[in-house]
């Protein structure tokens, strides 16, 4: 699978991660090796990332996500690229 974003495609959270909300923080826990750079690393999303993440739910194309967020944020595609490279989102079959 390509790490490049296709604006026409629909992405969904990978089954190889678990997203949890703990004490108000969105925490992404990798389940398999190769997602974190270090063996004991976790990921959190900042507020903007959290808003974008909530839209990557397997129902919208990237273009639709971008459209929805474009008025509020500068570059939502930046998050998608980062998530895709880390295999936290995968292409919807």
């Amino acid at each position, binding site marked *: 699978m390509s790490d490049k974003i296709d604006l026409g495609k629909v992405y969904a959270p990978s089954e190889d991660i678990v997203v*949890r909300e703990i004490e108000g*923080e969105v*925490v992404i826990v990798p389940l398999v090796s190769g997602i974190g750079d*270090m063996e004991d690393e976790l990921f959190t999303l900042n507020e903007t990332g959290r808003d*974008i993440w909530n839209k990557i739910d397997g129902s919208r194309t990237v273009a639709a996500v971008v459209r929805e967020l474009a008025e509020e944020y500068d570059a939502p595609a*930046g998050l998608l690229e980062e998530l895709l490279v*880390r295999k936290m989102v995968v292409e919807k079959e």
Partner: protein
Amino acid sequence: MSRQFVVRRPLPEFTLWEKMASGRAVFSFDFEMTARCNLDCRHCYINLPAGDRAAKKRELGADEIGRLGGEAAALGAVWCLITGGEPLLRKDFFDVYRALHRRGLLLSLFTNATLVDEEHVRFFKKYPPRDIEVTVYGVTKETYERVTRTPGSFDAFLKGLDRLLASGVNVRLKAMALRSNMHEIAAIGDFCRARTKDYYRFDPHLHLRFDRDEARNSGILAERLSPEEVARLERLDPERFGALTAACDELIAPEAPASDCRHLFRCGVGQRSFVIGPEGLLRPCLSLHHPDFLYDLRKGSVADAWTRFVPEVLKRETNRREYLEKCGTCPVVNLCLWCPAHAYLETGELDLPVEAFCRIAHARAEGLKCG
């Protein structure tokens, strides 16, 4: 303007810990997958025979474990220690592990390593635990198997450990110091330090059996080191003794503290963690086996246990004069193993002083003063 949407942090730097430090909140829990073990260690407080059918029948299933793990995660638990008995003895170990892992829990595993095969290694490489802790009972076949009373266990241990170390999984090694391996304890320390990048620790404090089995308890008592030997071992370990010396002012009060506190539980029990036993009984701490303090998760929920049951446990008070006048005002209580849970295991009462612990605490204090 470029923004960092995803914040990556190594675990120790995670800001979540600071948030969780204020107030009572679940941080972690221990899950005893089974009380059964393939070894028969002389000092063990829990082990039942590997083939104990009745014990096996009472154990939680993978589905139940997954449900309880989910309930704990929903309360905010970040960490789960999978322990036993020997967890790898369960035929459904992979299912159980995955059931907890899928909840987004960071997992640690305690194992004796003797059952680790290539399939386990492939699994751990794919689904890495945060760490695996292995106890080293001896560095020769004679000593190791004197402790485990299981022929062939030393070779199995070496093979399993080598597999884990070669896999790159984070392995931590530790030891129990007992009469049967005391002569090898320095060599065990060297063995562990040479094989793990993490810290090494040993424990000279042997707990009595949770099931109060008298014959097994007398075997454990025979394995306990004397107070002087415990203090001497601590003095000989630079890391441990350094830490104790650094904390000396907190560990030894200048004079007997005056206290009218009648609360039984004065430690951090019930504030951050809990333990779930093989049969689904939740208890506030590992050693607390008094029947008043067990909550049956098969009939309730982790949330009910944590929010209603445990706070009730923590309210328990005592009026027993022996405890209030001795342990309640003891200046070296912070060096002592005494707690209601251990007192119950030793005496059958939650609030009786334990003479053996008292002697160890004072020997440790004496050692620290001399140091």
